[in-house]
């Protein structure tokens, strides 16, 4: 098995992770509303076929009450506090949120108790399990209706299976899921998580109340320590099997579309080192992250009017760097659009001349824009909490977070070199959604080095597609 940490790259998350316990970060705001965000270092990613989908099923079951309270009673109890509680999953981590207004005379200890019972003893019965499984299957099937989701999700499933050995959540896997396995996954990965991070926006007077809620719900995680400087949680590490030579183009065969949703996603073998982190983020901002002010936005939409949406892909996949774009050219312009996209990908990442050729004035303007954007993010309590959450999940290094934003620095050579080497050690998955007969020759013409795979779109949620 290849080494996960290449010599030139250092794991961000391995640098220093949090001690066991609950990290608490509070942002004061006078509005009498408490907003708590908790990150648990466990997500839906699974390496065991029998566990695929278990966490997703549990995220639905959490809404269904507790061992002693059925759904309606439990939801009524939360509503009596005006409370809203959600639980969402990413690949490697999950986010538990709670929001409620502060009202005189309410016994918030009771609220904490309901939530604690829900977390530790959710209402996992044959009935609730059956309903949750059906809902997850319905969600998977319904994802076929959104072309953007169809292209990007299929690419990610492909990357997960082929480059990381993961087990994508598919209809057949969900159907094979067992209640007992689901319960075991919940208790092992979520209730039993060793360290968690909590960010809160609330009036400062409510801190004792917040401590009560956190310490009761997340009792297994131990002591609460207030921290202004967050530390990364110990997320599960998923080593890559990426060779860097894999370039695949998936054609999701779905005739009768009026647009050709197109995405290109790269996933790198190694993680960013400390000098690459800022360079990669800024490079992505210049190319596509800066929206319609970016190079890709300008070329695809502003100059040519080929598509409405031009957006970057998520910057990390399973903790590994990810580059690329998603866009929706209209069908009659698919040929021109794919030609433009191929050129942009080549000159943006593969042989990155775009960054090198950028006029000095544009470079300076983009840098100022990027830094202003970061400052704007930090200008609201929610923005500051979100930034700390990025540190907790390993998407922003503590070193960069702690440095004053106006002191952040990178240069053109660094950006060019980081994009180039990241792309070179990445697997790339392109995807188009539309009529395969029409799209296959276009993909072959504009992406000649990519291996083309045609997938009937309904098969994208079946395991056989990823064998």
């Amino acid at each position, binding site marked *: 098995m290849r080494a996960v940490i290449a010599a030139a790259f250092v794991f961000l998350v391995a640098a220093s992770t949090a001690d066991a316990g609950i990290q608490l970060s509070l942002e004061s705001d*006078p*509005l*009498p*509303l408490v907003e708590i965000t908790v990150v648990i270092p466990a997500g839906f990613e699974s390496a065991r076929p029998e566990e695929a989908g278990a966490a997703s099923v549990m995220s639905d079951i959490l809404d269904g009450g507790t061992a002693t309270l059925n759904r*309606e009673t439990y939801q*009524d109890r939360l*509503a*009596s506090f*005006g409370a*809203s509680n959600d639980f969402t999953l990413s690949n490697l981590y999950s986010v538990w949120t709670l*929001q*409620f*207004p*502060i*009202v*005189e005379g309410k016994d918030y200890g009771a609220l904490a108790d309901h939530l604690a019972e829900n977390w530790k003893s959710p209402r996992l019965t044959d009935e609730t399990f059956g*309903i949750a499984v*059906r809902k997850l*299957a*319905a969600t998977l*099937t*319904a994802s076929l*209706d*959104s*072309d*953007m989701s169809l292209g990007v999700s299929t690419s990610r499933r492909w990357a997960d299976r082929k480059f990381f050995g993961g087990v994508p959540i598919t209809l057949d896997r969900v159907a094979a899921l067992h209640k007992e396995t689901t319960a075991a996954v919940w208790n092992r990965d979520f209730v039993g998580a060793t360290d968690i991070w909590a960010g809160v*926006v609330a009036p400062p*007077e*409510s801190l004792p109340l917040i401590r009560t809620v956190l310490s009761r719900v997340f009792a297994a995680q131990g002591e609460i320590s207030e921290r202004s400087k967050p530390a990364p949680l110990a997320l599960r590490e998923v080593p890559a099997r990426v060779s860097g030579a894999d370039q695949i183009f998936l054609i999701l065969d*779905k005739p*009768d579309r*009026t*647009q050709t949703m197109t995405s290109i996603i790269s996933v790198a073998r190694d993680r960013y080192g400390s000098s690459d982190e800022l360079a990669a983020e800024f490079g992505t901002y210049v190319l596509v992250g*800066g*929206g*319609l*002010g*970016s190079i890709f*936005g300008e070329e695809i*939409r502003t100059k040519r*009017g*080929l*598509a*409405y*949406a031009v957006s970057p892909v998520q910057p990390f996949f399973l903790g590994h760097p990810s580059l690329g774009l998603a866009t*929706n*050219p*209209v069908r009659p*312009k698919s040929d021109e659009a794919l030609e433009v996209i191929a050129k942009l990908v080549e000159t943006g990442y593969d042989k990155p001349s775009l960054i090198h050729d950028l006029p000095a004035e544009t470079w300076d*303007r*983009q840098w100022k*824009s990027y830094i*202003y*954007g970061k*400052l*704007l993010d930090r*200008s*609201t*309590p*929610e923005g500051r909490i979100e930034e700390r959450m990025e540190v907790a999940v390993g998407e922003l290094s503590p070193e960069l977070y702690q440095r004053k934003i106006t002191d952040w620095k990178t240069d053109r050579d660094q950006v060019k070199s980081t994009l180039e080497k990241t792309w070179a050690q990445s697997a790339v998955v392109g995807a188009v959604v539309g009529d395969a007969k029409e799209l296959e020759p276009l993909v072959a013409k504009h992406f000649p080095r990519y291996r083309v795979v045609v997938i009937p779109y309904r098969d994208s949620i079946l395991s056989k597609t990823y064998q």
Partner: protein
Amino acid sequence: MRTPLLLLVALLAISACSAHRTAGPAAAPSEYKGFHRIEVLEPVAGLSIYHYRNDASGLELLVSPKPGTGTVAIVTAYEVGARFELNGRTGLAHLFEHMMFRGTEHFPKPFETLSDWGGRFNAYTTPDLTVYHELVPKERFNDALDFESERMRKLRLTPEVFDTERGAVVSERKMRTEDSPSGRLFWELYQFAYDRHPYKTAPIGWQKDLDATKFQDALDFYNRFYAPNRAVVSLVGDLTVSEALEQMDRYYGSMTRSSFEEPAIAVEPARQGIRRKVVPMKTESVILADAIFGATYNDPNAATDSLIASLLADDKLGYLSDQLVERGLARGVGSDAGANIDPGLSIVLVTGNPGVPVARLEQAYDSARKKFPSWLTAERLDNFKLYYLAEQWESMRDPMHLAEGMAAAHAATGNAAWDFQFLARVQKVTLEEIRERLKYWDTSARTRVILTPAARNAPLERSK
């Protein structure tokens, strides 16, 4: 020092129609050159909204200082939306919203310019309004105001840019309306519900009309509707009222009002009964939309309608969620019951689970609607109102959201504190009022459109 509890009490105590108005402190001058103060609103303790008007231009200005944030949210709401469009030129208000990002004399590349200031900008078009918004660092406030004022009257337009932007709009239409099941459903619903009123056609417009619209149409539209006397500027953030007035005078002070003849808006004829239509599309699930003609901004039923829609279709606490989603028939429920200038649609939406046929979903939905009044108790209503309040409050922490709410509310109703008063009215709605209003929901003119899976896309009709 105010305690959070006092703030809560203060908010709940707001009267439905009397946001506290004061003459204003000395820091907010009653006059500054062409601007004179109309009122100071205090819809929530600790939040002041200073309302000024420039008599020469008719421009309305709202300022709400939030010291220490280091940023300023700038929102401009124009009193023009799809309701002013003519037959054969639908989609023009939205297309023009795109054009507003295509350059002025001193700001030839707005996307780049706005990105320079941090990239937090966007715009949207509704049937009633067009709203532009930016969040900028305090030190770029003057520049941003310079840009906003220049594009109000001195937009630089060319036929080439018009054609390019039309291409982007066509792509947006295909993504949001033609290939999207929910987008298609909403399009069909409004087309089917209305006979004459311009709300019939969603702001994205007909493809045929987008194709037929000429550059001159866009110019005429701009000259007619983009004027200071049809605009509200809202500023929220790290600035004083005096600073705001000084810069507003600098950039907008020389503007004059444009003459404007209010277009005649077709009145929707009254009708009775239910209209029902099934539309086949390439989709995995049946989606059902059930709508009534809803309340206007001035209608006290707006708060009741919003509560009814949420009580029915909130994804956690809504009755339909319990009856349909938790019983394996539906994947999700939702609602849209906001107020409009003219009666819009209050909509309940149910997305079936794949494989659940139309008849089964519709029968279950109708049955649940019948049982809903007996499920709703005074205790449930009180709990739900608190939950509703918390959901709405969350967004008030955001300066941009606050600025948008103020500007849009003022442009649509003449009252910048409308959102706050609406929340206060929601808190006062009684079970009896809901039961009474439900009779209207059940017996007034209703429109139901159901999207159903088909092997191929049934093409969207190009025009009527």
